[in-house]
């Protein structure tokens, strides 16, 4: 019976109900999209790192795990290759961030192909000149680029020599020497990828390299890709918490205003319920059930909207951002929406519960 009253009350003011649901859904979408984006982008980066085909990865001293910053000297490569048993190939790449989510990679194709087995081209082929760039299919689709076209990157024009299958390093690859010169990083690289003869030799090689390259970070590829988590991206976790807090605040405020006006509007009805013998607890119960229903409907709409933002991002920026569907965050986002909404309903609910029956019945 009370559920019927709750549903009828929500149906009675469809615009208010709809606006509340939309506001709560935006809160849920915001959380799911942010977490989905960070996870999607990180997973994609991990996938592309693994796609190189290396067994071991060396990062310079003091570098962050994921950020492109930090350089080491290219001559580390001959050191590794020539003096380390079991190493069959090694290559260095220079990573240069072009914006928050994108970066361009400088590659020495001769050594890189020995590690990775080479790029799989869908159209065109490898660099022919220092001013050539290779792009992956997603970048080409997003920027409507074809082989032979000219693209502008880091204030310079490049000719597209080939379009390759996604899944290996960056979406834009240029010759290593050119990128080193352009970015004042002559003789420097960001990452060294190493291939060893058999998987059994990965661990001993890492131990030997770590011994030789003190202060450098030497990871097995398997370990490295597990490090692609929000915790290892500077400030991402804090940023996520801020967005979640703002979301809860928005949910709180929307429901507070919605329920406050509902209580004012229903003053007389609350008086009637009290005259019928409804306890303050029952009045509060009705409003909290209404709120919970709004929060659940908003959460379902928010989850659906998150699919919408994912489709939109995939359509507009397939080469830059990837939003994962984060099923494990559905209950968390729903719980956050419920908490924000129920907190917003507490004051209006208590106001309704404490209302004097006689005053409420005479309310015009």
């Amino acid at each position: 019976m009370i559920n019927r009253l709750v549903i009828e009350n929500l149906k009675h003011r469809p615009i208010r109900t709809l606006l509340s649901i939309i506001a709560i859904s935006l809160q849920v979408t915001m959380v799911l999209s942010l977490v989905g984006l960070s996870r999607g982008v990180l997973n994609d980066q991990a996938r592309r790192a693994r796609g190189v085909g290396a067994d071991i990865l060396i990062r310079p001293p003091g570098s962050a795990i994921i950020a492109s910053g930090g350089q080491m000297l290219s001559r580390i490569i001959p050191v590794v290759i020539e003096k380390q048993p079991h190493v069959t190939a090694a290559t260095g790449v220079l990573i240069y961030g072009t914006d928050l989510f994108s970066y361009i990679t400088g590659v020495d194709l001769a050594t890189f192909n020995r590690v990775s087995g080479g790029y799989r081209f869908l159209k065109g082929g490898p660099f022919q000149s220092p001013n050539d760039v290779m792009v992956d299919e997603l970048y080409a689709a997003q920027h409507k680029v074809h082989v032979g076209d000219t693209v502008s990157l880091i204030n310079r024009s490049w000719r597209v020599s080939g379009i390759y299958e996604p899944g290996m390093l960056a979406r834009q690859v240029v010759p290593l020497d050119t990128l080193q010169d352009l970015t004042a990083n002559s003789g420097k690289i960001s990452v060294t990828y190493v291939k060893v003869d058999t998987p059994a030799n990965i661990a001993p090689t890492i131990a030997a390299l770590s011994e030789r390259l003190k202060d450098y970070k030497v990871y097995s590829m398997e370990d490295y890709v597990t490090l692609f988590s929000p915790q290892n991206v500077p400030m991402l976790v804090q940023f996520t918490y801020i967005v979640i807090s703002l979301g809860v605040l928005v949910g709180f405020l929307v429901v507070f205003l919605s329920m406050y006006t509902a209580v004012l509007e229903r003053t007389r009805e609350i008086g009637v319920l009290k005259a019928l013998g409804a306890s303050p607890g029952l009045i509060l119960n009705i409003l909290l059930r209404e709120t919970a229903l709004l929060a659940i409907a908003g959460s379902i709409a928010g989850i659906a909207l998150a699919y919408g933002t994912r489709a939109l991002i995939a359509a507009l920026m397939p080469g830059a951002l990837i939003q994962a569907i984060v099923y494990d965050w559905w209950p968390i986002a729903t719980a956050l929406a419920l908490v924000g909404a129920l907190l917003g309903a507490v004051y209006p609910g208590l106001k309704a519960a404490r209302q004097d029956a006689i005053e409420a019945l005479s309310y015009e």
Partner: protein
Amino acid sequence: MSEEPIIAIRGLTKTYHVGDVDVHALRGVDLDVARGEFVSIVGPSGSGKSTLFNIVGGLTPPTSGSVHIAGHDLLGMTDTQRTHLRKTTVGFVFQKYNLLPTLSARDNIEIARYIAKNGKKDESFDDVLKLLGIVNRLEHKPRALSGGEQQRVAIARAIVNHPAILLADEPTGNLDTENSTAVLNLLRRLNDERGQTILMITHNPEAAAYGHRTVRMRDGRIEQA
């Protein structure tokens, strides 16, 4: 009548504090109402009849005196006890019907049963619905009902839990003559046929005449019983 009165009021006072001013709404009311009686209370505005209605209905506590309703002493009752009294012992009919606009007529009646936790389905209540003439209007929401129909639904809601007392506050105040007569006749029949005790407040002497007796109030006291 040898039986204990269902309403027994002695020396009832009620003082409201409005800012720094004390308003003496009731100044010592004595009233007995027997079980099965239909009593009309008349009086000008400010005479205290609404305050008496609110106290008997357990909507507000008395200041002093004794008020016994169906064996319950209202003086010193807590809010929770008065809530329980409203649930089980009294039923209200208001001038403005006061149906919940979002619920159908049937649900307006059912919600009173739900609040009173009165799970028993009462077959005889179908006869009451027939008597009230609303059997075919139960699925409609209040906005689709005429004033007379809404008031009849309100009467059904008031008596669905078999209250000891039905309190009616100007039940015909918003109705035309035809509907007023119909509602008053229904109250009279509920009293005659089901023995429902009714306390009705009204301005209208013709309406008051439907009761067994009329109590006049003035300046917070009963003039003539």
